[in-house]
């Protein structure tokens, strides 16, 4: 049974006004437990709207959203449960911090779940560990942290609810390369440690290639492709047509293959290096 499922979902923006438009429509989707799905698509393709449906922040115009076997709009209780089963971390989540200390802010989610002090304490420490926040930072004010630390503290606030599905909407936006790598590593190890499903909305085909197991491509408010990284990235012509660029290294490999070198395909620099070195008989 898939952990997340959408059946015929559509959502309208500015309903009933002259500027009414389809934000997403005709969405049929099954996401299996334990996957790390990279969601890509250019600005305005409906990525963010899509993910905000999984935990009931947005209500679809029609269609069904099934999380862990329950239709999330079947009852008020189901909607509320979906909030905790699916942890959604918005773009620029650092702007949601509000408590006096980082510790208190991370515990906001678990507190809303009605957990006891002891359990909350355990979860906060664990979440802080996942995102790599040092213990001494927990007693600081969230407004005294650096940009990257704030971002990670906010993500910890979602992880602390221990959702079955973690959704991150462009978690690396506006970070420097090091901050970006830190977050990506963190997402990868979080999934390996907890075995939970992760959805990662991103602009960067490189980032997605690095860590995702599956890729979902949004285009013009619809799901254009959904499959493994190899399946999707090999359709480079179609991707280009909808305004997405495959990673540079993949382009180089394409050209090399065209010129008679049979190298196969690579979507990350690391993988490319491995292939080239193995051709020469060496290893990384």
């Amino acid at each position, binding site marked *: 049974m898939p952990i997340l499922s959408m059946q015929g979902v559509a959502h309208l923006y500015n309903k009933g006004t002259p500027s009414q438009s389809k934000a997403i429509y005709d969405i049929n989707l099954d996401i299996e437990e334990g996957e790390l799905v990279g969601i890509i698509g250019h600005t305005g393709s409906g990525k963010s709207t899509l993910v905000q449906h999984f935990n009931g922040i947005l209500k679809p115009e029609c269609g069904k959203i099934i999380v862990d076997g329950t239709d999330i709009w079947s009852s008020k209780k189901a909607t509320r449960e979906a909030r905790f089963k699916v942890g959604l971390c918005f773009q620029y989540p650092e702007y*949601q911090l509000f408590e006096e200390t980082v510790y208190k802010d991370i515990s906001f989610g678990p507190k809303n779940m009605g957990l006891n002090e002891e359990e909350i304490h355990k979860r906060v420490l664990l979440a802080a560990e996942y995102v790599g926040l040092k213990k001494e930072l927990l007693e600081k004010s969230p407004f005294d942290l650096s940009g990257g630390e704030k971002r990670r503290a906010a993500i910890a606030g979602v992880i602390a609810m221990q959702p079955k599905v973690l959704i991150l909407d462009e978690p690396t936006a506006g970070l420097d390369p090091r901050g970006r790598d830190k977050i990506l590593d963190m997402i990868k190890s979080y999934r390996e440690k907890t075995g939970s499903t992760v959805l990662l909305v991103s602009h960067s085909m490189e980032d997605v290639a690095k860590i995702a197991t599956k890729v979902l491509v949004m285009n013009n408010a619809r799901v254009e492709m959904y499959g493994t990284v190899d399946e999707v990235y090999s359709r480079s012509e179609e991707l280009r047509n909808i305004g997405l660029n495959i990673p540079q290294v993949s382009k180089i490999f394409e050209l090399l293959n065209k010129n008679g070198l049979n190298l196969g395909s690579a979507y990350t620099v690391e993988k490319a290096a491995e292939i080239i070195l193995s051709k020469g008989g060496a290893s990384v």
Partner: protein
Amino acid sequence: MIKDITIGQYYNGNSVLHRLDARMKIILTVAFIVSIFICKNFWSLGLMVLFTLQTVIISRVPLKMVLKSIKPIAIIVLFTSVINIFYIKGGTPLIDGRYIDITTNGVFTALFMALRIVCLVVVSSMLTYTTTPTMLTDAIEKLLSPLKIFKIPVSTLAMMMTLALRFIPTLVDEIDRITNAQKARGANLDDGNFIERIKALVPIIVPLFVSSIRRAIELADAMDCRCYTGGPGRTRMKQMKFCLRDFIALIFIVLFIAGIVLLNYYFGAVLVK
């Protein structure tokens, strides 16, 4: 709830009202509001309602939007009407009960008040529907500029107003975003008693203040970078000029006020002393 705020709401269009000079529109609106309160009988009241209706018609703003601006004051209108009906005495008694007295004066006052408030709100919302906030503040600045003699920083005040209006939609978006983020962490905003609801607002208000202050600092820096000093010597991209239609509108409203005065004089007052 937040989406219902109609202050500074502009309806894009190209009617005569849209093209009128904003200064003239403000003057005419004030003149109309004053004339509302000199109506003494049903004839002048009728003229006022007619004038309001024709303003709505020539503005080409959809009726639905006009009604939306009346919605928030409906309760006030109802309340004042009921109070007036029961408490204003004089004229012919209609119901002369032991506990309640209703007289013609009461009913008429209630009717007058209700119509006056509705017309006032409709016409002033016509002003904001057909004038962009920037034009409005520019016009206010121009109209208040004589106050500069008294060392009142008129242009600074106008800039503050422009900025405040400009950031209403931005703040509404921001509130939406923060609310969703906290809802995603299980914040419960819709249930609970009064105190609980107030407390539930803290996770929204704190980030809102933080980002507003951050935004204000950034904006001030950006204005500094473009050498904004305010005050004298600033020119406008859009120069305001009175043209023929502005004077026609002026003549129109003068005729309207004259009409009200004449009708008042000719038919006398409807309320009995």
